[in-house]
């Protein structure tokens, strides 16, 4: 968790008072549920408050505060949908399991968090590289079969795995 920068708090306070309502309405056009929009509004201001570089709202006012807020909020909305898609995909897997194989709620929560973590780590990888990693590390398929699945050479599969593993380890730093 990064440290929040207290000195900017009152600056953000001004931003909050002036644009909070606008941002919430803007977010309500992006997500369906009002509660999600409210949460994302809060998250946006928290994000702005915790921004690594202090804002100089008083000294050099943001020229386009709403554009700035929309950029931060837009990123959060993308994340929100990403998480939701992952959640849905996981729920679908759970729904397809025979009842005796459905894991406990506790295990589900652990797996869900691990999935979010992996998804974050795998972010930015070429889809084929990502797929090669899943086929190899999760499904345990041999390279020869991955090569056929992805229609690439064995050498390429080896490169994909090396790239993906390095990417994950570096993302976990």
């Amino acid at each position, binding site marked *: 968790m*990064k440290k929040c920068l207290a000195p900017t708090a009152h600056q953000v306070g001004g931003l909050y008072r002036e644009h909070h309502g606008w941002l919430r309405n803007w977010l309500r056009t992006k997500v369906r549920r009002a509660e999600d929009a409210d949460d994302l509004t809060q998250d946006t201001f928290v994000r702005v408050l915790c921004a690594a570089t202090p804002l100089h709202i008083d000294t050099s006012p943001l020229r386009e505060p709403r554009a700035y807020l929309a950029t931060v909020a837009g990123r959060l909305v993308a994340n929100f949908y990403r998480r939701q898609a992952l959640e849905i995909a996981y729920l679908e897997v759970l729904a397809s399991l025979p009842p005796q194989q459905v894991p406990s709620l506790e295990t589900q929560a652990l797996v869900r968090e*691990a999935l979010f973590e992996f998804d974050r780590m795998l972010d930015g990888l070429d889809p084929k590289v990502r797929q090669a990693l899943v086929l190899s590390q999760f499904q345990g398929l041999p390279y020869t079969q991955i090569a*056929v699945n992805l229609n690439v050479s064995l050498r390429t599969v080896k490169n994909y795995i090396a790239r993906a593993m390095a990417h994950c380890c570096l993302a976990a*730093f």
Partner: protein
Amino acid sequence: MAESRPPSSAEESAVREAARWFACLMAEDATPRDRVDWQAWLDASPAHRQAWERLQKMRCAFSRVPANVATAVLTPSARRRAQRRSLLSLMGMGLLATGAYGVMRSGESDIWQTATGELRQFQLDDGSQLYLNTATRVTLDFSDARRRVVLRAGEILMQVHQDRTSRAMPRPFVVSTPHGDILPQEARFTVRLDTRDTRVQVLQQSATILPGQTQDHPSIRLPAVLLRAGQAVSFDADGAGPVGAASVDAQAWLHGRLVVEDRPLAEVVAELARYRPGILRCDPAVADLKVSGVFSLRDTDEALEAISDSFPVQVRRHTRYWVTVLARPGA
């Protein structure tokens, strides 16, 4: 897992090297020599060992997520589908609209087939994909209770997805042949029907084989066989044979290729014959010749040419539809 400190460039390069070693040692063609070299690399510096441990920790973390979950959730295509669905439902449109093919409304059935040498792909309205190899015929029988594909002739590759049509209960998926039923878990698998038996190869996920259990003889109860990814089995109505490894080229036909390693020529010629009209036979004198290579299924003449180029055989064309592979004179 997170350490909130960016890796130094030395750490980064050690991790990249470790990942290269890892990818190399994972390969089927890794040699004892590779292991010796890797050990030397590992011993060369504590930084190397540290990087290697990071990698092992990552593998350990991977193992916390079951394979089927990881595949469904982390694979880009699976995720895109889920994302699309979540967006659609958010737009108030409900689940995916049904039906690229209207023929599969409940209760109706339809026949799909391919000619010799033809390859076709179908998208079923439940989201599953069906590939028909050469000279294949299937009947689709989708009802409210189940999704059933009956293989009447030839070979298919199925990619089964969870039932996407909006129903309270997802319907089970069944592939039937005259020799029994196959019940896949959202699996990717091939089914090939021959006169004497049915062969199933599972590429992803798993499938349960119920030999002898068909729509016509539901009462017969023979031991079921669970096939996991990478496994294959042949079965007929009297039972299943031993479970073996799926061929690495199980789905090469999808890409119009025949991959063979050290197979008798007669077998390879018989395989090519499935893809061309007319008679293609192999002279018994060269039947046992061992053949390896990658051949084109889209152009079997080209494949035959490749074989006669690399092996001591010649191709005799009596007519366009009657071709024999036999020993090359003087070879």
